[in-house]
């Protein structure tokens, strides 16, 4: 059943998903399905979100007051919940992004020490 493509996709760590949601909402309010699509699209489908896991994450962010939620209607006139970044969430995003960059840089340095780049 599993294809090569599926195996190459990366399962998301919980904290990473939170970060990606915040990043997506930076561009403006969105409903759940749109957030999922945006994450998949922007990462060229490499990052695979089991879409259901979005919901506990959204609620976690609401609980921390990093995002807020309001009722609205979507592009095709369907009822939908729109999630929106709060000022606290915006600050948190800057903070988390910086942390993430640091971590990613560190991991990259460990995995590819200088001079070995062409070996891989």
């Amino acid at each position, binding site marked *: 059943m599993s294809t090569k493509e599926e195996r190459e996709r990366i399962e998301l760590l919980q904290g990473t998903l939170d970060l990606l949601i915040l990043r997506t909402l930076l561009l403006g309010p969105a409903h*759940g*399905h749109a957030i*999922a*699509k945006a994450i998949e699209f922007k990462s060229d489908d490499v990052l695979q979100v*089991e*879409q*259901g*896991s979005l*919901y*506990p994450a959204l*609620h*976690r962010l*609401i*609980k921390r007051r990093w995002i807020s939620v309001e009722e609205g209607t979507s592009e095709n006139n*369907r*009822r*939908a*919940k729109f999630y929106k970044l709060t000022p606290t969430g915006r600050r948190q995003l800057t903070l988390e992004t910086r942390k993430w960059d640091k971590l990613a840089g560190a991991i990259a340095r460990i995995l590819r020490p200088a001079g070995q780049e062409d070996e891989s």
Partner: protein
Amino acid sequence: MRQPKRMLEGLDADIREHIARETQDNIERGMTPEEARYAAMRKFGNVTRVKEETREVWIAVWLEQLIEDVRFGLRMLRKNPGFTAVAVLTLALGIGANTALFSVVNAVLIQPLPFENASRLVWSWGKCTLCTQAAVAPSDFIDYRAQNHSFEYYGAMAGGDSLFNLAGSDKPIQVKGSMVTAGFFDALGVKLRYGRTFELSDEKTTDPLVVILSRHLWQERFGGDPNVVGKSVTLDDKTRTVVGVLANDISVLSEADLWFPAPFQNQGMQSRRSHFLRPVGLLRRGVTIFEAQAEMDTIAARLGNEYPVTNAGWGLRLEPLQSVLVGSVRLALLVLLAAVGFVLLIACANVASLLLSRNSVRQREIVIRTAIGAGRSRLVRQLLTESLLLALAGGAAGVFLATAGVEFLRGLGPQSLPRLEEVNVSGTVLAFTFFISIFTGILFGLGPALKASRRDLAQGLREGGAAGDARSKHRVHNALVVAEVALSVVVLIASGLLLNSFWRLMRVNLGFDPLNVLTTELALVSPRYDDAQRRESFFNELEDRIRSASRAGAVGFVSELPLSGEADDTFFTIAEHPPANPNDNNDADIRIIDGDYFGAMRIPLLAGRAFERQDSLDSRKVVIVNEPFVKKFFPHENPIGKHLKMFEGKPEFTAREIVGIVGGNKHFALQESLRPAMFTPGSFLKMNVVVRSAGDPAMPTTAVRQAIRAIDPDEATSSFRTMGDVVSSSAAGDRFNALLLGAFGGIALLLTAAGIFGVLSYLVTQRTREIGLRVALGAQRSDVLGVIVGHGVRLALLGLSIGVAAAVVVTRWMSSVLFDVKPTDPLTFVAVTVVLGTVAFLASYLPARRAMRVDPMVALRHE
């Protein structure tokens, strides 16, 4: 806005909406509607779990689940009453035994002594070059008390109680009085109901003028009179004034009925040579016991310089009071605690294997729960809840067992255990039980729960019920049996060693014959017996009257009865071998005897002669010594005719000629080696009457009472004991340990047998089809029997070897509670191996017989 309820309201709709959008997208990508919907749902994941996880963000979902799990768990336990009963009973035994023993350990070792500032209370032992637990001389005590700065209060009590006749409105009664110094009650922080404690001024007398009453005496004898302070009481014809009443009894330190202050002006209280005070002090806040010890060492050195004759080499050794009172039983209790802990582990192994067996029957239920979306952690939690319910039920039943057990324990060891009266199932103990119940539940439940939830879904559904994959399941079962056998080998060997040791202790040569010997304490109260000659004729007449009245064998009197806890020793030198330094005194036990003491006790006369009546009054002073004394002090010569110069309370030592040698006897404890002792003829005011009767040792009771009344109606004796009882109560501690560890061994054996039986029965059920097949293919029934029994015995043998190896390591730790038995005693090891092997065989044989009777037709139709 952020209330959980409102937040979760639209969740279902949101999810439906989400899937609808995804389906729509998929259709737009060219899928059929059916394909599109399926793909969308796959992409979304497990809806139930998503909803549950989202809810968990908002509320303490675990609480909801817990209630649900508890309800479900209770239903499951009710549905399997047999399983539930066996598991709860097993746990009740394990937890109950632990609770009972912990209540003893808690009261004796853990709870602080019932004194204010118990942690700052320090006991002082006298120490010299050869002694570490001596008492302290009164004049030394006064110097230590006056010169130290480490103690807030420093007081002392006399080593033993004295008996007094307390006069009252009706007949006088005999009471126990104890001498204490000023500062004693203050150090202990004992509260007074009325009046005051003793002060330094109370000590400035040759004869105590005041007394303090114990609470029980005040209630029983003085009717709880609130105005008793200031009233006079008559003790042995002397009048004293009551100055105080204690608010509580202090039986852990002193069982006296009343206390009087030490009369330091008295001639007898000016000594640095006779050591009889037991000091106890309350450390000042912030002062450590080491600092106090250093200060006392300095004072001791100063006293040694000042009074070299009496004090050179003497000092104090400080020890926390708690350790003094309970130190001797600590190791034994810890051994028992370890053993009972092992029993609990065995119980856990039993219940774990029960759970494993049952979970495999429940496999289908578990698989279905997984299939409809229960996460693994959710499943584990649910199974653990059931285990915890079992454990708590076991714990509750265990508390009932323990309450009965504690009653039993209290009855077992009246004198052997200090603070026994404080032992009960208290709040602390209940908290302990609750804790170990939870711990137990996790210990036996977690493994099976993890294992059950690890099942591969598809395989589980396919295989369904009983005939699951046998290998790994059996491995765990087998491992549990091996562990159980190994644990119980260790417990059984420990209890075997202790029982063996106790058996030897009971058969040790006492050096006297306790059979048919009756004994009682006689304290002469009338002042006319202060005269030695009158006292002698009293005891002579008493001996004659008892003998003629009761057809008694021999009648004798001794100052300190063997194995009763009484003791006395004195200094001496050998006249024929004077020491180089006149102050180098030897020291040995001394007893004053009268009548035919050696005859009554059947202590053999090895050489020379016994005492005759005129010996006690003769100017020619004589002494008899025992065999250990000869071995130690006259190793190469005949001591008869030699002379001992003995300290008898006067500065001039008394020279006595050795006229006889008797066999040694046990005096302090059954475990000790025989001690050198000297016997001199005569009597004290307080003697132990020893009567050997022809038949029933209780018989001469009346004869003794009548004889005393006939000689002097003012004198009376107290209660009678047989010498057998005296010996037996001196071994009460060892009996307590042996019985308890024996009981734990029994429980361990029982649980292990049940465990082996349970696992093999389960295996037989699991392999019914296989066995049926084998029989159908022509296997003999005896082959089937052999396979099953062989399985059980193989496991048992593996457990036995592990257990024996472990026991060799572990029991070394017990050597100091064993008497005359090595921790690796081969007999005990072999006996335990044989017993456990036999039990394992029987426990395997019964299920095997059932397997043998399997009908192949029924078995193959089994599923």
